[in-house]
């Protein structure tokens, strides 16, 4: 199968590649671009571990072909830390609130939370849970992930974060 030339901006840098049309975007990111932070957890578009931010949307990169993303602008987990290398508010929130254990769902979860907070900078707990319903976690039971996102929302909003009483 003849390969197609594609180019896209990923984490601020222009990348090019030659891919088969059937090459999944998640494989292009992980293999061609060697950005292995984006993970694969299923093949039926349920788990969300492969979630990236593309052209202002949260998308499961396992359900797009790389050719569909030609000309797009993508942010992956590798593009989230601050310019000086410190953790972004979401990354810090996940650490402070123990919102991860094995770390496998974390990149997809953070990328989704990133877009969620742009859609809705002060979400309620219910809105957060609905907002991350496309991301499965097996380790945390989601409770601390909700807190992590609340922490980040507060920090981004310049407000002090108060953990809700149990």
């Amino acid at each position, binding site marked *: 199968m003849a390969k197609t030339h594609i180019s896209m901006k990923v984490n601020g840098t222009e990348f090019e590649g030659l891919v*088969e049309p*059937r*090459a999944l975007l998640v*494989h292009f990111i*992980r*293999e061609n671009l*060697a*950005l*292995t*932070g*984006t*993970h*694969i*957890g*299923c*093949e*039926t578009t*349920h*788990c969300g*571990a492969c979630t990236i931010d593309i052209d202002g949307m949260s998308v499961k990169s396992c359900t797009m072909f790389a050719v569909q993303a030609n000309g797009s602008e993508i942010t*992956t*987990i*590798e593009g*989230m*830390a601050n310019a000086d290398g410190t*953790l972004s508010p*979401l*990354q810090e929130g*996940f*650490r*402070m609130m*123990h919102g*991860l*254990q*094995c*770390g*496998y*769902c*974390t*990149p997809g979860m*953070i990328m989704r939370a990133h877009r969620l907070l742009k859609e809705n900078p002060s979400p309620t707990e219910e809105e*957060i*849970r*609905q907002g*991350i*319903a*496309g*991301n*499965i*976690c*097996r*380790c*945390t*039971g*989601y*409770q*601390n*992930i*909700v807190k992590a996102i609340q922490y980040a929302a507060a920090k981004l909003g310049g407000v002090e974060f108060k953990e809700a009483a*149990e």
Partner: protein
Amino acid sequence: MNDLTPTREQREAALEGLGCKRKRVEDIRFTQGKGNYVDDVKLPGMLHGDFVRSPHAHARVKSIDSDEALKVPGVLAVITAETLKTVNLAWMPTLAGDVQMVLADGKVLFQNQEVAFVVATDRYAADDGVSKVQVEYEPLPPLVDPFKSMAPDAPVLREDLAGKDTGAHGPRKHHNHIFEWMVGDKELTDAAFKKADVTIKELISYHRTHPSPLETCQCVCSFDKVKGELTIWGTFQAPHVIRTVVSLIAKLPEQKIHVISPDIGGGFGNKVGAYPGYICAAVASIVTGKPVKWVEDRIENLTATSFARDYHMTAEIAATGDGKVTGLRVHVLADHGAFDACADPSKWPAGFFNIVTGSYDFPVAHLTVDGVYTNKAPGGVAYRCSFRVTEAAYCIERAMDILAQKLGMDPAELRLKNLIRREQFPYHSALGWEYDSGDYHTALRKMMEVTDYAALRKEQASRRAAFKRGETREIMGLGVSFFTEIVGAGPSKNCDILGIAMFDSCEIRLHPTGAGIARMGTKSQGQGHETTWAQIIASEIGIPADNIMVEEGNTDNAPYGLGTYGSRSTPVAGAAIAMAARKIKAKAQMIAAYKLEVHEDDLEWDIDGFRVKGLPEKFMSMKDICWAAYNSVPPGMEPGLEAVSYYDPPNMTYPFGAYLCVMDIDVDTGVHKIRHFYALDDCGTRINPMIIEGQVHGGLTEAFAIAMGQEIRYDEGGNVVTGSFMDFFMPTAVETPHWETDFTVTPSPHHPIGAKGVGESPNVGGVPAFSNAVNDAFSFLGSTHIQMPHDYWRNWQAAKNLGVFAA
């Protein structure tokens, strides 16, 4: 002393030792996508392998035609059982004393069983190759119902066992029978039942499910032809065991095998044993001289790797009229699938199921377990089960509720009447365990007080009346669960994996500048060992946790260990860590005495160093002792400051807990809502409360999924009908309830730091709480026992069977 001198509190806090909510070290890389998981491993010239799998549950393999597959660009080889037979690897031993086909040898025994392994230059070509392999099958009648497995005319599954009337665990009664395991006193138990005022008997089934970690099983095998060395990166919860097993079955010298478990995306028992994928990738690498990667899909993971549970338990309790239990009898029919690949310690074919007397003082008990083969995936022991403890806890907790119902007693009151009392510890159970410590009554009373249990029962009574009056279509249930776990496998006298005793280990080496590195034989898959193990060391030897690097998973560097599963890491490796630290502390004391020019006995330990008794200003910090260890040790002493400990635990540990689930069910749709879930856990000494809470949240979420619908189900043809995330229930943040956690602390008397382990408790205690809640909701309408899982449609079915919709 001046303002600049840190206080004792400050020095303590600087260590971030035991009891501190230390933030995790692992998170720095995980939140940045810089973890190193198996599929991130890329080596030059690396090939990919993928499986051709059987669509049939039971069939003869007439022929495998690889011609078309080999024509696919990029496909290099198609390995079959015939290929593997040349190196005697067509079959491999299982952890349970059985053998298992690596690739189909003449027949297949479960749907999606591995038939051929296609090796190609990349995963796309490998998948193309798989689609082109032509296999001719002759279907055979499938055996799916374990209750029919020992019928006289049941299909023969294991032709390889023809004529073998003894298995690894004793005599076999039938060609589909694996073992019979008996524990306890039959005569005394029968006698207790004969004279009992009240007895109950119920078939309580724990359905088949699957641990489904978010990362599937995978490996990269790289054989260096020049050096004759095999390196394997893999999703291994027990990397050292894998190394030894590979050495034995592949006949490679063990020192030439390097096994590395990098970051693992969840294990939950799915990643303990060896799978055909590992063997085939290793063989392919040895044959081609190139690295070979195998990464399974989710459907492959759910349908072919180690399932969990599938126990059909007939429980009987004998009791006095006023609710004192006098005997327990349990028979289990254990469905092991096509091969007994259970990851149990070798002498325990039914794991530690004999913990089924639970938290109650049964004077006598008798247990029999019959294991059988069916045309389903092999395995059985997985999914936070502590070797069948999840099954045992579910059995006894359901049975106690059923007894309470028969007696007309409140389930919590019945438990209070029968819980083992604090004075009875260490407690010798009727089925052979010595429970180390517990204060059950305090825990249950605390649960009842905090949740205002009495008020909830009052509310339930009034809601039941309202339901009967037709004022509401919702029923309310209270699910009580009081569980005792048995973890920390285990003492060498009765615990081994393939002959290797189940100790664990820790090696600590301190550097001149007051920092150090520590390695253990365990392997975290999310439990946070890099963070918590350093906390133990920090408290023991006064070096800040941040200055201790913790490594696990590289078998060349880490001392031999049996890995992480069954909540054994804290009880066993945690102990080894403390013991190794204490060896270092003992040497440090001698160095300090020498440097301070006093006798060792004149020194006392003070948070982060040694102080001369009565002379508080004469103090030497551990930091300074580290430096001294490398330049001025006492004459005759070796320089350096390191120690290794291999810890053979004297006993298991017994965490316990009291859970309550408050649930409302809409009878018309069967939809359930968890109104409140309270979980009190006692895991002894709490190393990091933040991590404990996280473990409880995660385990409860798994329990919720299992109890309320997560099932690996087969139809009568042996086809898996719940083989992907479409139908295998994986709750999202929307379905998952809020968890309220609490604790008591009853240290383990035999553990160096009194810790018991907690990882699996929430799954053990959680499922009974949910299932008891559903059953409690319906019981006033006339039911005794409604089987799990409690899907919406099954709740509706239960309501229908109870006549709720009768005109």
